[in-house]
């Protein structure tokens, strides 16, 4: 009788263990199912086209966007960014002294990444501003203006490099999981998640605008948005998205948005960067 009870208990524990393990998926499985979802949803769209956002889904919009790209609205920002990058700090050092990769060699594609010594996700804009602080300069704001111009210059110089985000250990995985949960969590008075628009309804229209697919979202930031009439960073856009669903936006470069960027960039692994972009 005792043996039967033992066996039953063991069986239950085993079942629990199996269900716990199967409930946790690994990032690569997440990414593959994410990519497969878009392949099925927009079956005629080439994988490489997703870096063009919503323009990948509509030929007329794509043609219009190409004509905008002939004289891109982010051009002024590129010039400003180049000047900032090449102007030495007061101590004589430059931005390049803070990085072991040049913009031309794909500095943009190195971010976001997990910094294990600090146990946090590092983004390009955070690294650029920390470089300023480390050299005795006042950091720029996080969302627009000079930080966006500088980021745009770095992105432009490194166009065509592949996104290769890695998740090296358990702490990084926890950050990824937080970003993933953020992405799929409904929030705000409209009770909508990032995925509600950019996964399940990608390609559908919200009034006159087409919802862009999440696949490829991180390839082209920072962007010049016609709505802003200026450049903006990814975290500026995150804040805008949150507010559009009547939710509380989080601080740019805070842990919430950095983890979100980490998750989204991982989903885009293997895609080319083509920032900065021009968007409506």
């Amino acid at each position, binding site marked *: 009788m005792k043996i039967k009870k033992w066996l039953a208990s063991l069986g239950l524990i085993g079942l629990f263990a199996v269900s716990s393990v199967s409930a946790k998926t690994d990032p690569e499985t997440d990414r593959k199912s994410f990519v497969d979802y878009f392949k099925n949803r927009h079956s005629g769209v080439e994988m490489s086209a997703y870096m063009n956002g919503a323009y990948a889904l509509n030929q007329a919009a794509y043609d219009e966007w190409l004509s905008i790209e002939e004289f891109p609205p982010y051009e002024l920002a590129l010039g400003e960014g180049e000047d900032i990058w090449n102007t030495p700090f007061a101590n004589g050092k430059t931005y390049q002294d803070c990085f072991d990769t040049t913009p031309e060699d794909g500095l943009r594609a190195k971010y976001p990444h997990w910094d294990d010594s600090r146990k946090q996700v590092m983004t390009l804009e955070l690294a650029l501003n920390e470089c300023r602080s480390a050299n005795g300069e006042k950091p720029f704001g996080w969302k627009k203006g000079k930080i966006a111009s500088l980021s745009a210059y770095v992105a432009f110089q490194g166009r065509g490099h592949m996104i290769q985000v890695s998740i090296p250990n358990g702490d990084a995985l926890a950050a990824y999981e937080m970003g993933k949960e953020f992405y799929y*969590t409904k929030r705000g*008075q409209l009770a909508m998640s990032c995925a509600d628009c950019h996964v399940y309804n990608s390609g559908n229209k919200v009034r006159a605008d087409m919802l862009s697919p999440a696949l490829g979202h991180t390839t082209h930031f920072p962007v010049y948005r016609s709505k802003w009439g200026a450049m903006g960073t990814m975290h500026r856009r995150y804040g805008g998205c949150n507010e559009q669903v009547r939710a509380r936006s989080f601080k740019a470069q805070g842990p919430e948005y950095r983890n979100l960027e980490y998750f989204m960039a991982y989903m885009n692994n293997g895609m080319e960067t083509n920032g900065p972009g021009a968007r409506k």
Partner: protein
Amino acid sequence: MKRILLVSGLCGLLVAPGALMAAEFGKCDQDTYPLHKAVAVAAHEAADTVDGQWWKESMPKPLDEAAKAEKAGDYERACEIIMQVEHEGRAGYVQAINQRGAGPRF
């Protein structure tokens, strides 16, 4: 004596949730406004305990507006605002609980 205490205790247990229910779903007017206001504040504080989204942004301004309306004797307006605040606190709480561990639907 014991029986009286027991009966009054039981009655209290029955009446207290009833009063709260009345505040939650009942009519809001000059007499019940303070109760509705207390419930609205409690709903938002509850949402805060589970990291609900709406409490911080949506509470201070409407509470000020409700206080102004109350001061002006416009209880219809004050009640309208306070009921909305209460609704948002509840919804914020429910949303935060429901969305824990959210993941993809594919």
